[in-house]
């Protein structure tokens, strides 16, 4: 931590956002098991890669194009817990979609989070396109797409990286490699060990980073963003991480991975290890931690209550926004 070029405030904000994401995530599962939320997609286990990368960008100005796993990322990018819960419960004021999309289909124009669909890797080309506009308009923005390793089997992953490299676009491709595409392990997804190795074939740097260390993720993302802003083109980052829960609230991961494997990864739980690090290195005091924990509890309770009381969409709005006019 001594080598860090980061202020204690930023490190604490990182921790807070990771812990907030975990707490919101846990609450969403409870709501699901109580029959109050139809489906949940989790960031549980991915908090370090999501928060570390998001905080390395010019948040709210640079574009992010997330995927369904990215709860912690959108929180780091300025979506509020209330907005997350409005989305989960399909409320009219959900700023992601007005209750139209399934949970975890993020999009928030105010913070430059592009709306996302369900077909994986479609977002990769969108990020390249945002970056194409930045290059033409010289607006100084960087774009970042994030995605699981399963989606790197898609043609559009290849097309996006190739297009971006040829045109030296200011874009970052962030792979959150948790080893599984629902039940299918990475070894059935590709015949190589590392997603990052694919970068060489496109003529861009491919960087492997410990996805459970937010500081390391921050550093490689900041470097990729600098590179993009200097006009040197895209970077592929592969953050090795793990998801601690099933793919969704409808999945059962006992069918495809052992409890021992999950327990082994949990020893490196990014929220717990980062908390310990900040305490050990005296970046954060025990008092501060307590305050954070209370604040998180309050925020999650507030968000839940707020969203549950919020109005559902009026059926008459079904016809809105098919076209601009």
């Amino acid at each position, binding site marked *: 931590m001594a080598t860090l070029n980061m202020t204690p405030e930023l490190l604490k904000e990182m921790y807070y956002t990771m812990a907030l994401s975990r707490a919101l995530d846990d609450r969403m599962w409870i709501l699901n098991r109580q029959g109050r939320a139809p489906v949940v997609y989790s960031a549980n286990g991915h908090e370090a890669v999501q928060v570390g990368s998001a905080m390395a960008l010019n948040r709210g100005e640079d*574009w992010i*194009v997330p995927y369904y796993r990215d709860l912690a990322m959108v929180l780091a990018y300025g979506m509020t817990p209330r907005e997350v819960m409005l989305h989960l419960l399909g409320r009219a004021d*959900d*700023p*992601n*979609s*007005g*209750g*139209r*999309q399934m949970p975890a*289909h993020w*999009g*928030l*124009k105010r913070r430059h989070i*592009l*709306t996302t*669909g369900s*077909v994986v890797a*479609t977002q*990769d*080309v*969108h*990020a*390249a*396109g*945002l*970056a*194409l*506009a*930045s*290059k*033409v*308009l010289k*607006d100084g*923005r960087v*774009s970042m797409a994030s995605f699981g390793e399963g989606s790197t089997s898609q*043609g*559009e992953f290849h*097309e*996006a990286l*190739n*297009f971006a490299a*040829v*045109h030296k676009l200011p874009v970052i491709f962030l792979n959150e490699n948790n080893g599984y595409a629902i039940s299918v392990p990475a070894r059935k997804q590709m015949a190589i060990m590392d997603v990052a190795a694919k970068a060489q074939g496109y003529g861009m740097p491919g960087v492997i980073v410990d996805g459970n260390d937010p500081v390391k993720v921050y550093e490689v993302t900041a470097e990729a963003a600098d590179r993009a802003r200097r006009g040197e083109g895209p970077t592929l980052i592969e953050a090795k991480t793990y998801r601690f829960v099933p793919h969704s609230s409808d999945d059962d991961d006992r069918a495809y991975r052992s409890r021992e494997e999950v327990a082994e990864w949990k020893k490196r739980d990014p929220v717990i290890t980062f908390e310990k690090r900040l305490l050990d290195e005296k970046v954060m005091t025990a008092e501060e931690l307590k305050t954070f924990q209370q604040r998180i509890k309050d925020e999650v309770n507030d968000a839940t209550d707020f969203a549950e009381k919020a109005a559902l969409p009026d059926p008459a709005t079904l016809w*809105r*926004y*098919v*076209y*601009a*006019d």
Partner: protein
Amino acid sequence: MAVMSYLEAIRETLRQEMRHDQRIIIYGEDVGVRGGVFRVTEGLQKEFGEDRVIDSPLAEAAIIGTAIGAAVNGLRPVPEIQFADFIFPAFNQIVQEAARIRYRSNGEFGVPLVIRAPFGGGVHGALYHSQSVEAFFAHVPGLKVVIPSTPYDAKGLLAAAIQDEDPVLYFEHKAAYRSIKGEVPEERYIIPIGKADLKRPGKDLSIITYGLMVSYAQKAAETLEKEGISVEILDLRSIRPLDVEMILETAKRTGKVLIVHEDNLTGGIGGEVSALIAEHALFDLDAPIMRLAGPDVPAMPYSPPLEHAFMVTSDKITEAARKLAKF
């Protein structure tokens, strides 16, 4: 007023709109140095530079997908798909992304995007250089589908498409590029998308059609006029949205309707037009609605006799219209 080919009208409109709006960029396969395989974008890279007229990698999903991102971030992309037949790798990006982004974001995001693509047969293009693909996209709320038949319409509709806030598919019949000529005003103008055009007034029957088939229908109407049959021709110009009002007006006026398109019969736009008339003007009809369309075979074959057998021609239109007139 200058006389231009259909192709020149499209090129000059692109040039004029690009001069007017710095946000417009063009890209696709071979559109830059080569000016497109049909030369539609010839000279544009020279005038506007490589930043605005871009030779892109050969990957349709990336061409459309990046155009979506670029549109969101402030540009007005006008990508070209080299042949409409090649649009299918980008189908998901068009149908599930571009068309839905406004809806799924509850009006927060929009995709002002024009996808240009040459379509249609009769040029020995065989299965993969001849298709009419418009019905796939006309089915999709969130998209607009425009198909001009004359140089004048090509200009006004392209300008309207570029200025539109939503994704527009702009299909150009490749056999019309050089064969159809007409007067085109120098000044900028738009033709609102969704307005059909009465290309020829008549009394005995109405032909409702679009694209290249408009000129084929006009030829048929001239032949039939000599036989004392008066044919009205309604050019749809856009097949999504459809101009329901004008469709019903012409159906009620003549009482006999022949719908013509080169696209396959089943699931083609003729079925939709026919249903509209049946729902709203059935008792004004004097004969069953008739459709003349490309046959239900997978695509247009190469060898001339086979290609000719597939194509809808002036002769086939004349024959069908004569039959309908005599009903």
